[in-house]
């Protein structure tokens, strides 16, 4: 009995060969009920073309390495089951709106610098000395921001966001959600320091609440919600500063 197969159309780009754009290459891979697109890609690399390059690690949806566009939708390839795409063909491309280094590998330096720019650490006006012990936080206080700690930096949200696609300098969903993770943390006092970036047109206000970022997020971080809440606090902050320019924090 002939084995079932499914066609993968994979984007290729190998700059060392002096090519500018190779386009799509077709592979007929074995079809198994329990396989994901990552399995298919690894099969191609093992059996057909060892030069195919792509990132992956945990293969179980927690590391955020294997993000790619599958049939035009941003997905973790370890989370994209072949049976959902059968009979195919399945189009596999590098994550949208990022420069491509090679095949399915993207350059995410822009993403990393955005994450760093919003100061993703606890900021205190004054550090507590060690002798005074740890910062106490109730379960409810943790629950207040916990959702936004779940981000695995997979960048799917950036590939889903049309503003990322049209605006060079938009901060983007993950960065703003991360900023909110700290702003809503009871131990943090750095809201004002992040406000310059968040309250800017290239920060929270660039977002038009399309909502695609939250739809593709594999960890239900809901960056769209985080950004809208950031807009609300930014607005309230603005009024507060209007009324009390030199007032309390």
């Amino acid at each position, binding site marked *: 009995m002939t084995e079932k197969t499914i066609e993968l159309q994979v984007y290729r780009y190998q700059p060392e060969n002096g090519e500018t754009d190779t386009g799509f290459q077709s592979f007929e891979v074995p079809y198994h009920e329990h396989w994901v697109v990552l399995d298919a890609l690894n099969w191609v690399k093992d059996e057909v073309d060892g030069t195919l390059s792509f990132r992956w690690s945990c293969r179980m949806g927690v590391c955020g390495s294997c993000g790619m566009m599958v049939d035009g939708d941003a997905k973790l390839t370890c989370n994209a089951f072949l049976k959902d795409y059968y009979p195919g063909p399945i189009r596999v491309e590098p994550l949208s709106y990022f420069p491509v280094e090679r095949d399915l590998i993207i350059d995410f330096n822009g993403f990393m610098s955005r994450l760093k720019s919003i100061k993703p650490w606890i900021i205190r006006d004054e550090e507590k000395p060690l002798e005074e012990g740890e910062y106490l936080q109730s379960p409810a206080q943790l629950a207040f921001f916990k959702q936004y700690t779940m981000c695995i930096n997979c960048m799917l949200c950036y590939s889903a966001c*049309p503003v990322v696609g*049209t*605006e060079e300098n938009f901060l983007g969903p993950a960065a703003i959600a991360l900023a909110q993770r700290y702003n809503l943390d009871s131990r943090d006092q750095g809201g004002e320091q992040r406000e310059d970036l968040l309250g800017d047109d290239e920060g929270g206000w660039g977002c*038009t609440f399309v909502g695609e970022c939250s739809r593709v997020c594999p960890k239900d971080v809901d960056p769209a919600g985080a950004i809208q809440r950031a807009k609300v606090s930014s607005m309230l902050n603005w009024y507060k500063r209007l009324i009390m320019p030199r007032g309390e924090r």
Partner: protein
Amino acid sequence: MSALFLPVMILLTGFLLPFIGGAGSHASYERVHGLVSFWLVKLVLFAVIAFSLFHCAHRIRHILMDVGLREAAGVLSVICYGAALVGAGIAASFLIGL
């Protein structure tokens, strides 16, 4: 504002009032005019119209920016919010003149 009030108002002006609003009925001219002339109703109507106009202006401006007119953000502000302001002014004058 617009989400809360507009649907029911469309129902009224588009469907209910024209068809059951003849003289002597529930929604005769006297009744409708009397109702709308009440100062509180005038105020609420003005608020609904003004806020809805600004909300629509804001969204339309963003739509235009999204489809490529991003550079014209400043000009669009003047056109869209300006139009909303004019509309609100007209609403006020009509309401006062009732």
